[in-house]
């Protein structure tokens, strides 16, 4: 009796499963073209954590650029800046004053028109909130003036410094009407978006989905896709499966071990290029043993670069120095250490005054970062051959970065560290800020200083507007000088990876930004 009952329960369960496996037919979604993009907020681009363009951390800004637009934006694969909401611009007073002529007739999503006031109010709010990438990059702007409805002026505290236009690309412009009406309600912009971009926000569910609909009043070319659906898929293996099955059109995060399988799939296209995010172990040049240049060089020679590139072949490319060659006309710095030479390392170690067993250092990395872990483990193993002990410490990036910024300012022994592995973008403002004494940006960890480097960068920047070739020559000289000083060990560059369905066209990986999700440039 009991067995019969157990049998019928099992049969019912099996029947239920069979019924469930009969996949329901999804109703047709109509004729409109839709693109679906899987993102993972943790560790990369993704569904924005809030919609506020002035409360936007860098990795989420790429998706928001479909909704909001900047005044200017960098052209593909170069540092050249093109106008977006600004039609033209001039600079005066040695680069301390920038005047922009705005595009006429630009409609925003609330039906209002773009004005100089919108730019001023956007900047003011960005400064007041103080949380966005642009707020951090535009700290030297003294004020923004609306000269007339279509002319706006940025006044800087001082001329020079990192290229202003390049920094301005991160400032997104919102509707003046919305900014005025909701000036006292900081939460309003968190869940609503009023930009001028080719897409409007149709639905936004934090940590889940971000759905965009084409904005019919857009001033520029009409985008191909009527809707774009960003969904959050945290598990990389799931993203790989979804793009394979055509459940999504684009996936950004897939497990490296699944790449051979994905590459052999004829329905997929894989963009995998040696990218631009440089992995460098920054050495403490302002205190402790690494003040000694010979020791820094010894560490650079101790590293086995080939072993690292081989171990992480799908994700990592060999070292190219502080700036990838494509940004300097294909130029590769001749004095860069790219091969291991333990004999030379030993020689330099002796020259620095250290015998075997006399030196012990700490190598700081970020938690849950397998490439970083691999890199310092290889370095550690080779340092051991030289009789140098090293300890690997993995910490969250933000607390460690905050600590090192504090050390850079105060030189307090409490915050002292020997080194820190930092991943840095190649965008000139980053490079400049990272290697210059211009400390307003506070990313020059350990305060590496060389006046020659600073002058060469600034000269290059001034020349860039007149003579690009001579400007690049100055940048090259600056890079050579940096390499000679060896404030970092350059491990290599991260490969950028995007997996797409074969029929998606028009995608490009922007050289200076996180993997972009500019839906307006895509078509099927």
């Amino acid at each position, binding site marked *: *009796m*009991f*067995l019969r009952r*157990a049998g019928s*329960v099992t049969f019912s*369960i099996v029947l239920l*499963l069979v019924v*469930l*496996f009969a*996949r*329901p037919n*999804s*109703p047709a*979604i109509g004729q409109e073209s*839709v693109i*679906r993009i899987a993102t993972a*907020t*943790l560790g990369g681009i993704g569904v924005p*954590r*809030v919609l506020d363009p002035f409360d936007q*951390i*860098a990795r989420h800004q790429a998706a928001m650029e479909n909704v909001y637009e900047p005044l200017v934006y960098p052209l593909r694969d170069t540092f050249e800046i093109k106008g977006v909401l600004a039609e033209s611009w001039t600079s005066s007073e040695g680069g301390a004053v920038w005047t922009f002529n705005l595009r006429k007739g630009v409609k925003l999503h609330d039906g209002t028109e773009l004005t100089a006031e919108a730019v001023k109010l956007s900047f003011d709010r960005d400064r007041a*909130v*103080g*949380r*966005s*990438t642009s*707020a*951090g*990059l535009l*700290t030297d702007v003294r004020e923004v003036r609306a000269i007339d409805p279509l002319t706006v002026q940025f006044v800087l505290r001082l001329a020079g410094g990192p290229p202003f236009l390049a920094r301005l690309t991160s400032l997104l412009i919102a509707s003046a009407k919305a900014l005025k009406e909701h000036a006292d309600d900081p*939460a309003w912009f968190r869940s609503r978006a009023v930009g001028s971009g080719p897409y409007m926000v149709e639905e936004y*569910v*934090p*940590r*889940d*989905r971000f759905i965009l609909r084409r904005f019919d009043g857009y001033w520029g070319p009409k985008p191909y896709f009527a809707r774009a*659906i960003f*969904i*959050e*898929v*945290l*598990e990389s*293996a*799931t993203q790989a*499966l*979804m793009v*394979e*099955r055509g*459940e*999504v059109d684009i996936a950004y995060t897939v497990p490296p071990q699944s790449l051979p399988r994905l590459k052999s799939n004829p329905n997929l296209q894989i963009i995998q290029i040696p990218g631009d995010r440089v992995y460098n172990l920054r050495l403490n040049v302002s205190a402790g043993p690494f003040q000694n240049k010979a020791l820094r060089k010894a560490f650079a020679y101790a590293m086995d670069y080939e072993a690292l590139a081989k171990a992480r072949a799908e994700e990592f490319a060999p070292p190219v120095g502080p700036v990838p060659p494509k940004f300097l006309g294909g130029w590769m710095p001749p004095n860069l250490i790219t091969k291991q030479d333990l004999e030379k390392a030993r020689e330099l170690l002796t020259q620095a005054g250290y015998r075997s067993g006399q030196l012990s250092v700490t190598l700081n990395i970020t938690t849950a970062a397998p490439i970083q872990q691999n890199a310092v483990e290889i370095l550690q193993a080779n340092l051991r051959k030289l009789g140098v002990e090293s300890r690997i410490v993995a*910490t*969250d*990036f*933000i*607390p460690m*970065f*905050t600590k090192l910024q504090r050390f850079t300012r105060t030189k307090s022994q409490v915050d002292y560290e020997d080194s820190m592995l930092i991943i840095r973008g190649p965008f000139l403002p980053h490079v400049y800020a990272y290697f210059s004494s211009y400390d307003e940006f*506070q*990313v020059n960890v350990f305060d590496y200083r060389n006046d020659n480097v600073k002058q060469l960068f600034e000269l290059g920047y001034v020349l860039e507007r007149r003579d690009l070739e001579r400007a690049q020559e100055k940048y090259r000289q600056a890079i050579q000088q940096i390499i000679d000083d060896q404030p970092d060990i350059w491990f290599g560059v991260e490969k950028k990876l995007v997996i797409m369905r074969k029929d998606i066209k028009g995608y490009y990986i922007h050289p200076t930004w996180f993997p972009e999700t500019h839906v307006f440039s895509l078509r099927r």
Partner: protein
Amino acid sequence: MGRFVLHRILLTVLVLFGSLVLVFVLSHAIPSDPARAALGEYATDEAVAKYRKDLGLDRPMLVQFGLYLSRLVRGDFGVSINSGQPVLRDLFQLLPATLELMVPSLVLSTIIGITLGVTSAVNAGKFSDHVSRVIAVTGYSVPVFWLGIVLQVVFFGWLGWLPAARRFPTEQLPPRHMTGFYTLDSLIAGDFHAFWLAVHHLVLPVFTLMMLNLAILARLTRASMLEVLGADYVRTARSKGLPRRDVIYRHAFRNAVIPVVTVLGIRLGASLGGAIITETVFSWPGMGRYAVQSLKNLDYPVVVAFTLMMTGGYAVLNFLVDLSYAAIDPRIKYV
């Protein structure tokens, strides 16, 4: 009975307070800066300092704890550092998704697990016993995240029968929010197609979440039943000529089920932990995934509130389990 209930309530309050102190101290002892983490590396120092002040992080930890406690007794769990929304609102918005996953998995794992355990014990050494033991051992030893991924590969990747992730198809609007349970909302709205889609999205995550509980309950029921089936009173019942069904259910099963109910109570709490992993693997927008993201983003208010809810849920469930003993076994009296 009244004294017992009062005693247990007081103990539960103590447990909650202890866990609150522990989580609060631990989360604030992490050598990190949640304000900097929330605002990103490019945020200005002034903005970070202001945000830190707004969050009260510039004050001594004891003062922070006192303020938190005074807000907590008024039902205010604070504001999420990352979303800027009240934590309780965030958690309650996500609760239906988590419950929609947990409830069917617990119900199914209990029914199937106990049925398998009883079948196995009654047919000890036979084919059905071997089959149920294999199922139990497999469910017990396979990690939840691995099982989830394998199910996705087979049923989504290879066969294409079931969706890999999420609560509803990407391109369709979910049923209108009434309870937050997609299955219930679609039924209330009379939209059977939406109900069908919601159930389809539930199959893999529910199966993944239920397997561990099912295995534990099956093994425990089997062991407990085997012990009871060999007892003198069962032999007496058999020798009296009672029907097999009465012997198994009325005499053996009721006595064997007490340890099973105890473990069931513990597993109900542990299922919340399983839900965290399952929600991450299946991109299920529930409380577990939110907690993981908050932990990564150093969102203290969410982490503390989530832990408190977990502890509270765990304590209440175990309290209910203790109360259920008297209903199952009349010999048990509360003093």
